[in-house]
């Protein structure tokens, strides 16, 4: 509404010279914004986004390779990517779907419609969920190369960083519970390692083989948003991480459970929760590592 009054202000004679200075100012701002948004920190960034009850993990390696592991239950992940990628950069080198539950997958569909994704890693299966169909349709429509992943595979990110696949044992396991066949990854860069247990069930964790030499674990992503049923005390003791991260939001399941919190705190392992601390960033140069949280 408001036609007449706005009109009197907006209807002015067109004068192209009027656009010169505003145009120049905008261009200058743009160039400076581009320069300033260029990523200058050349440490590896491992970031657990606060996407509510779900998982979304972003990795930017020292050489600038960008990886997204799961996308959370809605489009929120896009807001975070918008902040972590400079505005002119619309590509992701790798997208990994650990398992096709909606709280991990839905956000990725949104990402696929916005970003150019060079490669997708996931294990296809007979899933009925609508979001899974959307996801596969988008991948086919854009003709994105797909890799599968099983134990023993290594995804080399750059000269220094790689993701080791610790699970599943085969790519064609028929199961009614995708949590049993979800892709479990170990990120290694220099002497730093992080174990990403997504929604792994207790039985999976018990069968998990962590390659020797990686016993010294820095960061562990607590499985299944801190669910009691996914707690394997033996693994917590064996892995003995320096920091545990729980990716969790408001939920009616009681995540994270008191038992899980207790299992870590009794071993003096600090816990960071995305619902209370916000997104958790871990920065490492391969030797030392730092963490910070952003709400």
């Amino acid at each position, binding site marked *: *509404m*408001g*036609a007449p009054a706005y009109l009197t202000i907006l209807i002015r004679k067109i004068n192209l010279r009027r656009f010169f200075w505003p145009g120049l100012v905008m261009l200058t*701002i743009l160039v400076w914004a581009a320069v300033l948004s260029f990523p200058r920190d050349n440490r590896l960034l491992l970031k657990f986004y606060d996407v509510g009850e779900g998982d979304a993990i972003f990795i930017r390696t020292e050489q600038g390779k960008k990886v997204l592991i799961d996308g959370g239950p809605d*489009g929120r992940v*896009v807001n975070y990517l918008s902040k972590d990628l400079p505005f002119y950069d*619309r590509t992701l080198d790798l997208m990994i779907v650990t398992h096709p539950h909606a709280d991990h997958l839905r956000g990725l569909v949104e990402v696929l419609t916005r970003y150019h994704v060079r490669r997708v890693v996931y294990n296809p299966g007979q899933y009925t969920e*609508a979001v899974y169909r959307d996801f596969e349709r988008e991948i086919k429509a854009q003709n994105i190369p797909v890799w599968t992943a099983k134990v023993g595979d290594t995804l080399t990110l750059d000269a220094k960083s790689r993701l080791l696949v610790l699970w599943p044992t085969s790519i064609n396991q028929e199961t009614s519970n995708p949590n049993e066949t979800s892709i479990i990854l170990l990120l290694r860069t220099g002497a730093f390692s992080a174990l990403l247990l997504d929604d792994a069930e207790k039985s999976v964790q018990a069968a998990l083989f962590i390659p020797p030499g990686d016993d010294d674990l820095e960061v562990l992503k607590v499985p299944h948003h801190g669910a009691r049923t996914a707690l394997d005390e033996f693994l917590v003791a064996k892995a003995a991480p320096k920091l545990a991260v729980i990716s969790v939001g408001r*939920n009616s399941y009681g995540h994270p459970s008191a038992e899980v919190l207790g299992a870590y705190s009794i071993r003096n392992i600090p816990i960071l929760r995305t619902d209370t601390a916000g997104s958790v960033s871990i920065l490492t140069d391969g030797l030392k590592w730092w963490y910070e949280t952003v709400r």
Partner: protein
Amino acid sequence: MATSPSYFRRLKLFLALNFSRLPLIFLLSLSWLFGSAAGIYLTPLLAVAGGLIILAVFLIKRGPVAYLSLFLIYLLAVLRLGLFSQSSPATTLDHLASREVNLQGTVDGPPRYYNQTQRLFMFDLKDSVSLRPVAGKIEITTSADVTYEPGQQLNLSGTLELTPGQGGRTYAEISYPKITARPAPPKPFSGFQKMLDNIRQKMLSILKKTLPEPQASLAAGVILGMKEQLPAEFANQLKRAGLTHIVVASGYNITIVLSFSAQLALFLGKRLSLILGLLLTVFYALLTGGGIPVWRAVLMSFIALSFEMTGREREARTALFLSAAFITLLQPESLTELSFQLSFLATFGLLYFTPVFDDMLSKIHRRGLGSKYFKEALSSTLAAQVATLPVLIGSFGQVSLVAPITNCLIFIVTPLIMGLSGITLFVGLFSAGLASLVAWLALVPLTYFVKVVEFFGNLPWALLRI
């Protein structure tokens, strides 16, 4: 200032309603509007009686014939509404607690997803059998196997559970109801609609591919009126900053489209640019997929513009009342709709109060900060704000205190955003790379807008609850 009347005198002129100096068409429209309002809010008998009393007063004080005809119009409006059967009053959710219910409703906002389930709100509820409206919203939990879209119509059957929620409100929920999607009502020109839908989706995807968030959603909101995909946090900040009206397809966008075409008047001549303006706004309204509010705005803006273009700028007030009367003629229940009330009042404020604020601001300072642009922006925002305030408070119980400031700050960039995003969309139809370049330019005003919203939306005192 000696030549222009003081705002007190203006106000007196306005309040005294010197009828003999007002055009007949204005008075006719006014009578019709009052009649419609009386017909809706009063019982027919009371409405007629009230009208008679006012008529009597006027007849005694002034001449008879003109006022009798005004009363006739008034009466017609009242009677016409009397013919509409009063819809049965809404059932409250309390009446349905812990009962098996069969409801139909509309999906409100995007569903939230959990492991294998999703939760979504439903509004616009009706009993599926009796078709009686049910007041309130319910939340349903269902499996994530099926995708539901905001605005989709669903039939639900299940047990309604009520739990007390925050702030004394009750929270109504149905877990795992039986859901059947209701087919969308058949639309005329469905092929055409589908084509427009495709264009809209294509345009949205161009914005999403070229711009980061929340700038992409903001651009989609400003140019296409699509506010569904705004990030929740940003939408909340927009509300607090008093800028939500920018992201709905409304009269504001239509005004800007019209003013672009008005610019062309210099090259095409008034008549041709008027026709072009009409075509452009109709296309725009179709494109935004906007419902009745957009069409109302098109009608109102167009009447206003044609008055302006035919050299009757002074009659803009008549144009406003004429178009409002026109709308209530077509659809009397518009009067009770918030969007109609707000757009009518905003324009009313712009027309009647802007000069008042202009005078006041001129008195406060004549030079310096009060550059012409800023003064015009501030007085028109204040005018629209003041006029819509009662309705805003009445229906939302809250008002943004920073709205006058934020509206001034974004006043200049909104046309810029529309223009540059529009060019991005146009170019994007041919080349994605080129679209990115234009989009980066659009990013400058968009980011400025976002920063204004974030700064003012985060001020703890930005929103006053009443």
